[in-house]
């Protein structure tokens, strides 16, 4: 039988990167994303005994992470910056590769989406299966497909718009 500590370590290894990306897409700030990721896993650890396999563990962790991010945004009144280009220009050193800038721009564009859109698109990008996304976001699978299609277009449009600037 696995101990709580070893179970937690496994869960952390398997999910921390995805959760960090999710938190980063909400905050566009790596320090805040790290804090939120830590808070998410602290709650996972505290509630691990209560997890009864009603859903997949990754679904459960995603839910906790989304709640953590939303509570953070509400309590801190932190919103994504309105002007994307100056943010990137001021914060990135010149030698940083083009790929890194592209990824940063992608995160900035995700941060411009609505809260519910952000969580859905992050899961789509992380290749989470549709039934699982539907469960986490509380939307029927049929509606979800339509919504995902719309978010994909919106994100692509946003990205191309800011890339041209």
């Amino acid at each position: 039988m696995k101990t709580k500590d070893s179970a937690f370590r496994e869960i952390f290894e398997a999910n921390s990167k995805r959760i960090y990306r999710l938190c980063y897409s909400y905050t566009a700030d790596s320090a805040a994303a790290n804090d939120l990721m830590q808070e998410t896993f602290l709650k996972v650890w505290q509630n691990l005994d209560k997890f009864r396999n009603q859903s997949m563990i990754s679904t459960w962790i995603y839910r906790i992470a989304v709640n953590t991010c939303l509570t953070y945004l509400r309590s801190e009144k932190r919103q994504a910056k309105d002007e994307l280009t100056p943010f990137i220009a001021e914060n990135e050193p010149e030698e940083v590769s083009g790929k890194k800038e592209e990824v940063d721009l992608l995160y900035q564009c995700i941060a411009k989406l609505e809260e519910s859109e952000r969580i859905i698109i992050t899961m789509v990008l992380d290749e989470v299966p549709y039934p699982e996304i539907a469960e986490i976001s509380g939307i029927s699978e049929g509606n979800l497909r339509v919504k995902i299609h719309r978010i994909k277009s919106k994100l692509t449009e946003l990205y191309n718009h800011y890339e041209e600037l």
Partner: protein
Amino acid sequence: MKNFEELSSMWTAQPQKEQITADTLLKQVKKGTQSLQQKLLVSILMMAATFIFMIVLFLFFLFNSWLTYAGIFITMGTILIYAILMYRDYRLIASHDPTVEVNIYLQKLKEYQKGRNRMNGKMLYVYSVLLSIGLGLFLIEILRSVPLLVEILAYLAFIGWMAFVTFYLRKKIIKTEQEKIGQVISRLERLKLQFKD
């Protein structure tokens, strides 16, 4: 112009940032709350050491004036009462593990914050006054044999130090302590808000 598939592969290929390990994460959470306890414990131990020193003075040194003994007793009594009250606060937060019983810990932390506010308010002034009286009485006999100028300077230094601690250092320490408690409380409250399971 990029299409969504290109954005998706950009997302998949993004460089991974270095992340902390599970063990470090748990250690960090515990560290924030343990530093509060440790500071309080250090203060209690320092008070205990002073108390023992006063007992040694009382038992092994012979003083001529009753005022000196009165000073020793007032100082000892003040330190003892204050240390007991601090220990009560220490027990309040030391008896629970914040990473296991977050709700109980949060409640205890709020009680602790109230207790510290009370201690750092009027109680600290009473403590400073009693301590000043006690040490002042003790100094009368000790400084009797030294030249007048030294005696005056010693009293001035003593009064200056007590005033500095009571009116300046105290405010600074209280502010830092309250900020730290406030941070831990808001972090735990944010966690508590999410307890829906």
